[in-house]
């Protein structure tokens, strides 16, 4: 039996590689806050990744701790922010979206955060009419 011509094996691998490059999302944001999200049972997947805005809430990571202490901070995309700035952030994110009515805000909040700051964020979200939110969490049970 003639031997298999293996000179095009790399091309096969390249095609799988291109598939991965197109399908997956690389983490664009450098996390400046550390968080452990809670675990729940009634989870829903985030459809339409392109229509999702992320808000991270938690204590700053090691390198920022010296500058900002250990209080809970909000991170929007890649910078720290205060609750009032969230409104502009949401408006900005919305203009970048193709389908503006489907905007979902994913809240990645550390478990031990106090509700005060989360409620402030939610009030600002209400005022910005970003009513679809998703509390990011892992699955348990």
């Amino acid at each position: 039996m003639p031997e298999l011509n293996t000179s095009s094996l790399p091309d096969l691998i390249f095609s799988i590689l291109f598939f991965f490059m197109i399908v997956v999302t690389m983490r664009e944001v450098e996390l400046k806050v550390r968080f452990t999200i809670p675990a729940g049972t009634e989870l829903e997947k985030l459809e339409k990744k392109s229509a999702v805005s992320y808000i991270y809430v938690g204590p700053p990571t090691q390198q920022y701790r010296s500058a900002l202490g250990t209080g809970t901070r909000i991170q929007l995309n890649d910078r720290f922010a205060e609750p009032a700035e969230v409104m502009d952030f949401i408006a900005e994110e919305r203009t970048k979206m193709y389908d503006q009515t489907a905007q979902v805000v994913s809240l990645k909040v550390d478990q031990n955060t106090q509700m005060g700051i989360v409620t402030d964020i939610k009030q600002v979200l209400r005022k910005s009419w970003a009513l679809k939110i998703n509390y990011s969490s892992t699955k348990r049970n």
Partner: protein
Amino acid sequence: MAKGKRKVPGINASSTADISFILLIFFLVTTSMDSDKGLARRLPPPPEDEQQDAEIDVKERNVLQVMVNSAGNIMCGGEFIDITQLCEKAKEFVKNENNSPLLPEKHNKEIPLLGNCVVTDKHVISVQTDRGTSYNVYYQVQNELVRAYNELRNELSLAKFGRVYDMLDDEHQAAIREYYPQKISEAEPKNYGGNK
């Protein structure tokens, strides 16, 4: 030096596959394909003015008060409960099977695909937290309440349509949602510090 033309051997291309394997493994390791999951919620629209945020008059029997203080204790309907009991209490409240006068009022409602039903359409589950309450406790409370609604909807779906809620088409799902609408209201957290 006069040398004859030397034949330079061609590059051995048998290891280009290895290079592409390395790139592939790099991408597999550094990226994530799993979609983000979480508890999906819908916020109420913003109040037109500050007054609207105040509570509308509802009968006491129609409201289930769930309060969480900064220590993480949960009080439901006036008594302290454990998180595991919250789901049952919420289900019992929303369903009001025996039309008890202590639980929400039931009214007739015409729902397409389900016919004339008796539903607790005026019920409200009110969640109140303290500013110092831990997010995890709040999240677990929300999780249990959503679980209560999901279980009630599944039970109804199995009884009426013979399939679980997720397997239904949009029309049927809308009918079940109209039978058991999610009415969870969240009040402005107070700063009590202790028990509320």
